[in-house]
């Protein structure tokens, strides 16, 4: 065997060997060319993606007309908010779903003495995802002082699983993960996002650019009647599609409890509130047959922590659906001015500007009378707003037929 394995160095100098050597160098050049042809475009794409930074993870300088407006950030909040937290190390965090994301402004005056504040609202977040982002934030900043979280009934739906964009891999780390880096630099997805960024940034309407503090309200919102109607109808449909099937998750309630306890353990001041969905948002819950489940959810939550409840049928949520609405973008999302009122109430800042019926602190002591009051308000609302109540029911019937 050893003889077989001994090299025959002789052939390299034979004439046959010469020919082999020449051909070998031809292939050597070919291989270099192949590598060049493979890696030049990759390097170009990589550089382009880093320069435009379409997901906002590298803190690259933004240049007006090139990359100040990054539309793909919208669907990738779990990615860029994790890296923002690492960089900004906020003292105040605003948690919640897209309702918080679109409604609470971290630069609002009520938060003036609590800076740097950051909006950590995540699209469709469930309590587990939020708990993990809280742990991520604490791992990156021991001086986190204030947390305000807007919770919603839909979050606690057992079917509201972690989103595909969620990954443990990037959390509780002090830098962006290797996999995330590769994905946002060397991928066709990132390339198309960069092109979209370029395109969007050239549009004069988007001159202003994105908030760098996680706050993402509707941009250039069209408040015309037709578009407003469409947005409301669409948001009922989205609700039915994702939450017609609902099961109150005990695990998520336990995750929320851990969230509260984690804040306590780290000496973080915590304010919890239930978001004010539009009155018809309550009607959508009712149409799925889960109104009582929602009441049960509130009873469970107050056992854990006192909660500011802004939901129900009050002077803010019962704004009629019409053109030029002031309080709502759609049935799910309140607008920034309402977000300010929420902050006023929970932080006891200029409370006199907040309508009296907007925001009730509920505890195990007053929960039953509070729920009874909402039901009474609902009777009155339904009598005066038959058209809106019927609209939601019709959409639910249509949805059921479609399934």
């Amino acid at each position: 065997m050893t003889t077989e394995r001994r090299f025959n160095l002789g052939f390299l100098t034979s004439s046959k060997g010469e020919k082999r050597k020449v051909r070998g160098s031809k292939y050597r050049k070919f291989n270099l060319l192949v590598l060049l042809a493979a890696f030049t475009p990759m390097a170009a794409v990589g550089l382009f993606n880093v320069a435009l930074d379409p997901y906002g993870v590298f803190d690259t300088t933004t240049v007006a007309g090139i990359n100040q407006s990054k539309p793909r950030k919208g669907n990738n909040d779990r990615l860029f908010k994790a890296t923002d937290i690492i960089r900004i190390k906020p003292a105040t965090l605003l948690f919640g779903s897209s309702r918080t994301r679109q409604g609470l402004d971290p630069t609002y005056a009520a938060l003036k003495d609590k800076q740097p504040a950051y909006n950590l609202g995540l699209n469709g977040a469930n309590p587990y995802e939020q708990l993990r982002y809280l742990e991520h934030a604490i791992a990156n900043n021991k001086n986190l002082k204030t947390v305000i979280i807007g919770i919603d009934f839909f979050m606690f739906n057992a079917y509201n699983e972690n989103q595909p964009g969620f990954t443990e891999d990037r959390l509780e780390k002090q830098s962006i993960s290797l996999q995330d880096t590769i994905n946002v630099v060397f991928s066709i997805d990132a390339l198309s996002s960069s092109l979209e960024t370029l395109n969007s940034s050239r549009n004069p309407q988007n001159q202003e650019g994105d908030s760098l503090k996680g706050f993402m309200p509707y941009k250039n919102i069209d408040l015309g009647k037709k578009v407003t109607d469409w947005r409301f109808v669409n948001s009922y449909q989205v609700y039915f599609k994702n939450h017609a099937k609902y099961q109150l998750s005990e695990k998520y309630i336990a995750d929320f409890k851990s969230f509260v306890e984690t804040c306590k353990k780290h000496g973080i001041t915590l304010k919890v509130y239930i978001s004010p969905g539009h009155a018809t948002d309550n009607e959508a819950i009712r149409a799925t047959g889960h109104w009582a489940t929602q009441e049960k959810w509130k009873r469970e939550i107050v056992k854990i922590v006192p909660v500011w409840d802004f939901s129900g049928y009050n002077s803010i949520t019962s704004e009629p659906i019409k053109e030029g609405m002031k309080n709502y973008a759609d049935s799910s999302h309140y607008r920034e001015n309402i977000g300010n009122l929420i902050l006023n109430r929970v932080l006891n800042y200029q409370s006199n500007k907040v309508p009296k019926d907007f925001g009730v602190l509920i505890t195990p002591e007053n929960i039953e009378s509070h729920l009874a009051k909402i039901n009474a308000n609902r009777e009155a609302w339904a009598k005066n707003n038959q058209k809106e109540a019927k609209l939601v029911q019709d959409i639910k019937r249509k949805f059921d037929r479609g399934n």
Partner: protein
Amino acid sequence: MLFNSYIFIFVFLPITLLGFFTFSRFRLIHLAVGWITLCSVIFYGYWNPAYLPIILISMAVNYFLGVRISNAKAMSKKAKTLLWLGLFFNLALLGYYKYANFFVSNLPFPAIANFIEAQLNTKSIVLPLAISFFTFQQIAYLVDAYRGETKEYNFVDYCLFVTFFPQLIAGPIVHHKEVIPQFRKARTFLLSHKNLALGIAMFTLGLSKKVLIADNLSPWVAPAFNHASELNFIEAWVGALSYTYQLYFDFSGYSDMAIGLGLMFNVRLSMNFNSPYKATSISDFWRRWHITLSNFLRDYLYIPLGGSRRGEIRRYGNLLITMLLGGLWHGAGWTFVIWGGLHGMYLCINHAWRQLNKPLPKFLAWTITFLAVIAAWVLFRAKNLPDAMEILQAMAGMKGIVFPGEAQGKLAILTQFGIQLQSWKDMAYIPEVNGNKALTLVVLALVTICATKLPNSEEMLKKLKPNWGWAIWIGALASLSLLSLNRVSEFLYFQF
């Protein structure tokens, strides 16, 4: 580690290559062989280190038995006893890890099933990666040792033959006679730019088949197969064809990558796919699809069963048995067994027809073969037999033939011929390409042309010339594939 991952392409592969050729350069041949064996074991253990003891024990036992068998006189009684022992060991290992659950769940008496389940804890068994492949390879080694056809191999060579990472996970199933001698040739240890070029080209072709074609077809498959009873004529065909092509481009792409990796190390692995969808008969199909498995089944099952030497009736029986077991090898489930049985029947019909000596026109022969193969893939992929029957009925038009179109449109005349029209938007299980369902059909047509008209990877490789054109074509393909490997997973339902 998957071949189609950055960690493999940019970390594992360069380190393994560098180590191998560095040791080789200094004529440290044993170290070079040891290095690549070690790397292969790491490659295997990277998935789940818990699997490592299983493959290591399997190799040790088989090597030990193989040496004892070849030391005994060929075909002697002692050799035979040892061979049976080895077969029992390998099949018991495979049986426990791959089939225990399946057999227990099919036992007729629940009390017995529960007892065995409790004793063996079958529900918690996790299938070790590649066990079907390395078991088969080693059975072949034992049988050949018994036949006196093995040479003396040392243990490291033997381990390398089993674990050599390019072929370990998904084939080609290599034969010891093909690879072990290659580990002993001086040429193997000399970096060859030509082989490197061919290897890179082959790897790239395979990678692009997997990443650019198969991975894009894969999301089209599940919606159809998960809603078997709701599919109409077109939806069923789109589902079945998508799977037919996904499986081919995925599996043959992976084999191409394996062959390419082998070439980089100057090791030639057997061709595993030769344009199977160009086959004009079922036996032709099996000479082109997963060739190394077909060869294995032929040499170590069909021929030992008697092959065609014991009369026509036995021959048909042997074909059926071989294919039924071949089906079971693919997975522990009835649909796989039925799929194998169906192909066994196809082969019998194929053989009987050939006896008649009336060859069909080529196009007709291809069409019948391809349809038979697609129908069998439906069984292979479906969750269960009733689901498969639903899809096959829809494809056969037994649930009505539906064409895309509006009831009032130009195609309305078709309704007179019993063809129903349905608008695209009502076909829920047809995927969209750029928001357009009609484009999906265009894509499937293009893929059909790729699979049935274009030269396959091996044929392309033979044409490769070391010039600018080829370099740019291969390089660009590699670039596109590498950039398509990574995805940014986005939020699914917008704004809530």
